[in-house]
């Protein structure tokens, strides 16, 4: 009972099913095998079956009988010490009970459906706006309140609440999105190609000078001409840039640090004038910066520049001051100067910040920082010459989103009006001023409004619209015009209303088989996390989609479309908690080698996405979730995993050595990070996580009275030893025997998923490990007690380490597939897998068995199943 989420009760609470007597034969079985302990006197586990009613209309009662069914079915009850019931007798009991349970539940499902009506979650809402308004650059997810989750996903109606705050945010988000999608100017702006030289960027050249806050060469930038340092320029005795255009092309500005306070050079003269599509080109290369004098060899000599020794990974980030950062892409800066192009969507006002992520990030601490990458003959650096911006690029004019809203009505540029400030002189603001936008002109506002709204609604709503729908929103236009607002503003108000209206915000489904429109929505919100596109709508319009072969073809099409990455990302964000990747950071002392290493974190986040995408794409067996002979790494991750080195920042598929503990999702750095807290790992937490997410065997709820173990990083005791005492108590042992084993096997992985044979500790107990962190500070941790990663599965099978555990888990690949289907079906249908749904899960598995439970097959069979095609 405790294992059932509270939501199950709410789900069923509203519907009444008449109480029924215990199915025939069940009473006798219970009396023969159960009531010796579960009676009024002993009441073992709080359960008295002699007095317990059979009232399936009560959700709690229903859940309890499911538990009775499951514990007997798994052979957990009667307990091992007691005589076993005759197998036939038990089977008869189970089949009778389960038929009764299913029939009770099926009645409820027929009446109201498995799922509850739900609104779009914020991922879906963002995608819906992007697709409808043809504005892929929109970033509005974080402007909406965080969605509630149930059964681990943000797709379940019961948890997707509304509030006045949510409503207010919808209004402002919709208004913002609509304005972002309008033509920024009345005429198409000419496509400009402009080069921003680093020598002209104050943000690059400012830090060449030392000042009272900063006298450290590591935190300075430096002028470079080809492979020459420029002491005169650096000292301010020569001009920053040459008047000779040919020389100017060879000038650059370098750093030996990665972008972090206080040294974060940006191309500050460029701010994206309007939101949209741009091409960015960077001329950059890696260099080698000479050593300091004598004992200070690790301090760079910024005048002594030579050819770089290796490639340097670069992360390009868009920055909205102050401090809102968005990663745009990566490339490798080679020793040979080269131009790298990124195709990007920018928000108005964003500026571009390159980051040479491998380089160090000086932090104050116990002593002066010391670049960990410094060698006695120098240290690596990166030079940027210029950034070229091409854009904004339009594939049609006016932009498609604008045309959707305003058709081909004429427009004029709005004029920037400085509103009187009351100040004698206006304050100078460095803040970015967005384009003033356009005013769309209409000679017959109400006629145009009716026509345009009709077209807009047709695209916005996911089912056929009628003139009545249009009439609902016309009063908004009328009211706006009546109070003197312009036609443009009146239309924007009406469109805002549409985007906040229930038919846009909520997914509509009626009990029973879904109609073609609802099916189209369910399919596209499943596989694209966004509304149906034109083709899918067409299938719905023609009432074709429910036909199995059409549905299958559309499933394949959606999976093959690049938009399916939205599914991969959103599904993994919740299934594996990848959205929590940045919630905690490696401890600055204990894991100072990971601390500040954004490149590692970002790479780790990509790995499971690329991996799962391949499982879907190539229909690879579900067992790969636990063990695979390949994974995706870049240079940083390969080093982290101790794999044969690869070069470069891009992730690529690699075949793993036969003895590698990696492969599968369990041992991904990302998974190991989100299941730890940055400082310590817990076999219990990780074990429970694996049981629930990967094996589909949720752990019993934690008893409230037992405090969590206080993590100890002093090194004298391991977490396993701390747990031993607890596990040895009989009342705790039963649950922990189920929860912990997988967690023990993962103890060989630290908080960032690095392999460890020994635990790290702080404080006395050993000299600090030699080495310097990315912060430039010396390591302060030491290695303490060894890791024991062995364990025993609940069924008695033993393992020594993660490799053996994986082999044991693979023995039941059907269970891995079953769990995946269950997770997918919650995600796809917004409803938990209930007792009555189990049969359908099994038939999905049966149909996917020939593919060895290929992930793509599982998805396709799920879509064909009544679980998916009925509400």
């Amino acid at each position: 009972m405790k294992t059932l989420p509270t939501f199950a009760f709410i789900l069923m609470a509203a519907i009444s099913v008449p109480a029924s007597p215990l199915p025939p034969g069940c009473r006798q079985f219970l009396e023969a095998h159960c009531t010796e302990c579960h009676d009024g006197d002993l009441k073992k586990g709080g359960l008295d079956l002699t007095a317990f009613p059979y009232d399936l209309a009560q959700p709690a009662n229903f859940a309890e009988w499911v538990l009775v069914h499951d514990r007997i079915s798994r052979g957990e009850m009667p307990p091992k010490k007691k005589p076993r019931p005759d197998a036939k007798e038990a089977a008869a009991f189970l089949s009778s009970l389960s038929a009764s349970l299913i029939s009770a539940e099926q009645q409820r499902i027929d009446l109201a459906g498995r799922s509850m009506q739900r609104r779009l979650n914020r991922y879906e809402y963002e995608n819906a706006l992007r697709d409808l308004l043809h504005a892929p650059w929109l970033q509005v997810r974080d402007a909406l309140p965080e969605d509630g989750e149930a059964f681990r996903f943000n797709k379940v109606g019961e948890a997707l609440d509304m509030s006045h705050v949510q409503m207010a945010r919808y209004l402002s988000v919709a208004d913002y999105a609509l304005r972002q999608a309008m033509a920024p100017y009345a005429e198409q702006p000419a496509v400009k190609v402009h080069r921003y030289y680093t020598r002209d960027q104050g943000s690059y050249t400012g830090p060449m000078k030392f000042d009272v806050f900063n006298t450290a060469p590591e935190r300075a930038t430096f002028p470079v001409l080809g492979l020459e340092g420029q002491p005169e320029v650096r000292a301010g005795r020569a001009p920053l840039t040459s008047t000779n255009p040919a020389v100017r092309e060879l000038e650059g500005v370098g750093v030996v640090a990665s972008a972090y306070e206080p040294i974060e050079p940006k191309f500050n003269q460029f701010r994206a004038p309007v939101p949209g599509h741009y091409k960015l080109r960077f001329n950059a290369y890696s260099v080698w910066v000479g050593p300091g004098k004598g004992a200070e060899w690790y301090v760079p000599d910024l005048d002594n520049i030579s050819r770089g020794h290796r490639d340097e990974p670069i992360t390009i980030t868009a920055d909205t001051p102050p401090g809102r950062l968005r990663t745009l892409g990566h490339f490798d800066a080679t020793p040979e100067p080269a131009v790298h192009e990124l195709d990007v969507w920018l928000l108005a006002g964003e500026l571009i910040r390159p980051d040479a992520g491998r380089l160090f990030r000086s932090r104050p601490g116990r002593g002066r920082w010391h670049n960990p990458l410094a060698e006695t003959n120098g240290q690596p650096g990166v030079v940027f010459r210029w950034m070229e911006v091409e854009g904004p690029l339009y594939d049609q004019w006016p932009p498609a989103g604008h045309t959707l809203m305003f058709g081909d009505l004429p427009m004029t540029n709005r004029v920037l009006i400085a509103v009187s400030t009351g100040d004698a002189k206006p304050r100078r603001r460095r803040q970015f001023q967005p384009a003033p936008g356009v005013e769309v002109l209409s000679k017959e506002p109400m006629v145009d409004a009716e026509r345009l709204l009709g077209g807009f609604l047709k695209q916005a709503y996911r089912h056929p619209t009628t003139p009545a729908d249009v009439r609902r929103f016309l009063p908004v236009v009328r009211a706006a015009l009546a109070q003197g607002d312009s036609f443009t503003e009146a239309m924007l108000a009406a469109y805002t209303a549409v985007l906040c209206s229930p038919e846009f915000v909520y997914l509509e489904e009626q009990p029973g088989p879904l109609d073609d429109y609802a099916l189209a929505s369910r399919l596209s919100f499943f596989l694209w996390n966004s509304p149906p596109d034109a083709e899918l709508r067409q299938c719905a319009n023609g009432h074709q989609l429910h036909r199995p072969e059409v549905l299958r073809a559309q499933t394949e099409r959606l999976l093959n479309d690049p938009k399916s990455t939205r599914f991969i990302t959103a599904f993994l964000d919740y299934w594996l908690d990848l959205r929590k990747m940045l919630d905690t950071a490696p401890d600055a002392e204990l894991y100072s080698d990971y601390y500040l290493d954004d490149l590692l974190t970002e790479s780790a986040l990509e790995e499971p996405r690329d991996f799962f995408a391949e499982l879907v794409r190539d229909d690879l067996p579900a067992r790969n979730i636990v063990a695979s002979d390949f994974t995706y790494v870049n240079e940083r991750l390969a080093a982290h995993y101790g794999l044969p080195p690869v070069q470069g920042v891009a992730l690529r598929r690699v075949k793993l050595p036969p003895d590698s503990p990696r492969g599968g999702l369990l041992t991904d750095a990302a998974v190991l990070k989100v299941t730890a807290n940055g400082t310590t790992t817990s076999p219990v937490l990780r074990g429970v996580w694996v049981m629930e997410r990967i094996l589909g065997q949720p752990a019993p709820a934690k008893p409230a009275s037992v405090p969590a173990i206080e993590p100890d990083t002093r090194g004298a005791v391991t977490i396993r030893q701390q747990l031993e005492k607890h596990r040895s108590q009989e009342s705790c042992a039963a649950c922990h025997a189920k929860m912990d084993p997988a967690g023990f096997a993962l103890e060989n992985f630290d908080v960032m998923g690095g392999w460890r044979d020994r635990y790290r500790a702080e404080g006395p107990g050993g000299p600090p490990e030699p080495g310097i962190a990315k912060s430039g500070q010396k390591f302060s941790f030491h290695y303490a007690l060894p890791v024991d990663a062995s364990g025993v599965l609940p069924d008695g099978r033993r393992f020594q380490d993660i490799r053996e555990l994986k082999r044991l888990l693979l023995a039941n690949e059907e269970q891995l597939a079953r769990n995946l289907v269950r997770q997918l079906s919650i995600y796809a249908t917004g409803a938990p897998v209930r007792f009555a749904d189990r049969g359908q899960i099994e038939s999905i598995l049966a149909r996917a068995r020939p593919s060895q439970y290929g992930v793509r097959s599982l998805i396709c069979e799920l879509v064909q199943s009544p679980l998916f095609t009925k509400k």
Partner: protein
Amino acid sequence: MHITTHRPLSRRAFLRGAGILISLPLLEAMTPAFAGVVRATPPASAPKPRRFLGVCNNLGLLPDQFFPKEAGRDYTLSPYLEVLQAHRDQFTVFSGVWHPDVDGGHPADNCFLTAAPHPGSAGFRNTISLDQYIAERMGPLTRFPSLTLGVNVLQGQRSLSWTGSGALIPCEEKAADVFALMFLQGTKSETDAQVRKLELGQSILDAVAGQARDLERKVGARDRDRLDQYFTSVRELEKRMQMSKEWENRPKPKVTAPMPLDPASPKAYMDKVKLMYDMARLAFETDSTRSISLLLDSVNSPAIEFGTVKTTDGYHNLSHHGKSKEKLAQLQAIDEWHMKLLSDLFAQLKAVREDGETLLDRTMILYGSNLGNANTHVTTNLPAIFAGGGFRHGQHLAFNTEHNYPLPNLFVSILQRFGLETERFASATGTMRGLEAT
């Protein structure tokens, strides 16, 4: 149509096209949150008004002078807290607290009221600040949902206040502007424009509510529950818009205090701090707002002058004292003056009475820093004082200085004191251990 329950804090220097705001970050920045309910005499059953002022001095305080040595109620006041001696029973001092995983040195001040982790990392996006969270919910009760103030902030372009979308709300840096906003009547055209926007908002809500009603007829009981919730949300928002509209036509309160005169030079840092404290007090006294943030941008301050002291070096520079005796002495003088101004503010709030309680009893003041020690830029062991608001104060809540306790737990305590039912704010794990409401 922008969300019209937001009342612009300042419409002055912003550019608008045909009277309509242009983009969300800018627009949200101008209109921090809801405004609403006209405050007549509150009915006896109405909950007590609660208020919040959050102050961050982004260079912090010298730790050895600030933190008391003993924990609990019988602790001995530290040298700095001696200055606050008269208010000993009206504040709690914390040690061993931090904002979990908020690192990165100076930029951490962005997160003082948000507690969003890793302000320096590449995926960083700030989250809603405590004052704005309060404003979104309590805003309708006062003319201004919140005030965002700053001292020596370069062109007002930084602050402690962040919207739910992670957009910065620029601060008011001149006390005179804040005063004018609160007490001088706006122009008719400004008022009219605001009323028009609210009315448009109401017509939008009418349209969507109508659709919700129609849909309710088509769905079963369970699904109707969801639409009911939608409908209620719309009605609640509508009520708030109505309240906002009513504010527009009500005269602003009159005060006897004169229009403040803002010092021109950033050297007069301390005078500016005092003026902003005055504005906060006036705002609370007239119930103009319930939520105020104040960033003391010490990092951006030059050598400063106060009382008889003229520092020889820039404030930021002094903070990197490197244990120099001269610098430490000057920093100590600065810090003590901070305490004195705070003491004056507490005293003034105590002198004002509202329904038989002092204004301080109903005003929660958090004074602290994003830096535990400016000399080393650490963001652990943050100095923090929490005063007033109807808590059992007079204690030093000492937490583990090696493994810090989450300061966001205090935020949850504050929100609950406002009567808001929440267990979570940012990385909070619950309410502040050891802090009890009276």
